[in-house]
């Protein structure tokens, strides 16, 4: 493995990208989970699929687009989808969760149409759905790195505002925090991170990398900062362990990463149960 990492650029790309998304996906995931927005991540990942499919279709039909990295269009669709969700949430004030199935099914519908129109792709669509160790390019790595630095900087700079918005939205508004703008920035960050993470874990499993590590750490963490710390730690273990297994067992990394995250979650629940049983 170590020699493989030294030798093959594709492995370096996969592991470096994995290390980056192991930080940013759980970082935003903490805010997503405590704000009870977990399903939004799912909806946006399916919109991203539509964007990827659209890009692959263009690539196949028009020579002009042959160099286009599908990641860009995936991101554009994801951001567009996030704005559409916000719009729907204001239209259906009393049924805000309706926005999620609308966007989710719309995303899949669009994706399926693009895929059928293309009559199959040369590029392995499978790698977009379930992640891949071999498909991450240097351009992907650079794009993901830039986005991640931007997201981390924003979260650090807006940490106290994001915390307050998540903990108590009404109070945030009452004290004069620009809650709407802040939420807008947040949802765009989520859309970008989903598109960035999809290369490694795959579209179908992106949301689990944002929620499972958080679900585990919330079981025993004291306070918000500790929750973030453990979420990132669990995210990293899942991604790196998952990539390692994926490489050796020749499995799609999406599956191995998520299964490790599930294992950590089960251990966290078990650990907490034992700890509380002891204290009695």
């Amino acid at each position, binding site marked *: 493995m170590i020699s493989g990492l030294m030798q093959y650029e594709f492995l370096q790309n996969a592991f470096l990208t994995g290390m980056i998304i192991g930080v940013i996906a759980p970082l935003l995931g903490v805010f997503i989970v*405590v704000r*009870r927005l977990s399903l939004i991540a799912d909806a946006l990942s399916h919109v991203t699929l539509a964007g990827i499919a659209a890009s692959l279709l263009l690539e196949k039909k028009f020579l002009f687009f042959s160099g286009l990295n599908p990641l860009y269009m995936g991101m554009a669709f994801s951001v567009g989808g996030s704005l559409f969700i916000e719009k729907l949430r204001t239209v259906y004030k009393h049924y805000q969760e309706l926005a999620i199935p609308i966007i989710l099914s719309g995303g899949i519908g669009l994706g399926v149409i693009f895929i059928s129109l293309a009559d199959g792709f040369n590029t392995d669509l499978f790698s977009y759905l379930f992640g891949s160790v071999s498909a991450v390019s240097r351009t992907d790595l650079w794009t993901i790195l830039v986005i991640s630095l931007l997201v981390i900087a924003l979260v650090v*700079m*807006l940490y*106290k*505002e994001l*915390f*307050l918005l*998540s*903990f*108590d939205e*009404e*109070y*945030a*508004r*009452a*004290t*004069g*925090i620009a809650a709407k703008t802040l939420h807008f920035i947040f949802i765009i960050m989520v859309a970008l991170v989903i598109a960035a993470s999809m290369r490694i874990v795959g579209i179908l499993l992106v949301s689990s990398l944002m929620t499972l590590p958080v679900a585990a750490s*919330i079981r025993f*963490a*004291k*306070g*918000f*900062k*500790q*929750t973030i710390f453990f979420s990132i730690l669990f995210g990293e273990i899942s991604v790196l362990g998952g990539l390692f297994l994926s490489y050796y067992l020749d499995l799609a990394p999406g599956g191995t990463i998520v299964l490790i995250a599930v294992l950590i979650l089960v251990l966290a629940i078990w650990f907490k149960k034992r700890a509380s049983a002891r204290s009695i």
Partner: protein
Amino acid sequence: MANNDYIVQVQDLFYRYDKENVLENINLSIQKGSFLAIVGPNGSGKSTLLKLMLGLIKPQKGTIRLFGQDISKFRDQHKIGFVSQKANSFNTGFPATVFEVVASGLTKKLGLFKFLKKSDQVKIKQAIGSVGMEKFLDRNIGELSGGQQQRVFIARALVSSPELLILDEPTVGVDAQNVNSFYEMLETLNKQNGITLLLVTHDIGTISDKVTNVACLNKNMHFHGSTVEFEQLKINEVSEIYGHDVHVLTHDHHHHEGAHS
């Protein structure tokens, strides 16, 4: 009309929602250093009046002045601390310590892109101490009792050193035996720290003798005066406001409660 002795001045205020008047012709003034309780039954427009005073909604008619300034020009939100009724129904599984929750009260005052300084941490600990919760600094907020959580939310409001503290139904979710010590804490804040208090409640029985002024609201302002005057009101007048029989407190009520504890 700007008078610096008055922290809040509400004049001829009307608020309509769905063609129905929620508040009519409201006049209210809160003097610096006082402890005012606004009482009224459910649906009397208390929460609406608070929202108007916090600038969350705009009235159709009338003016609100905060610290002598028209509310549309008021930018010193940190001078007003607010403890919402919803404080009781927040996400109790939220992973935040008492310290983190109270620190979030400084968000607006510190401003964008600023981090907590040493002096802010001292302030946070002081605020937690002033509500008697210093032992619970690192506990998750969800592990505390309703009354303890309410104290934490008061500390969060206090941390930005407000001159006016607004409490919406603060004793809901506080055990009956702790209500007295809760009011004693409010009295200390009022008398020793010089914070003007505004408390809103539907439960006329919880108004304690620590309150200096009372306002009775039910769409209109039915009474606005000192607690002494309020207690001289005939019971049937109060019933009229509420529309049903009520048990008005007397000082005996408190002695009675004291004998039990």
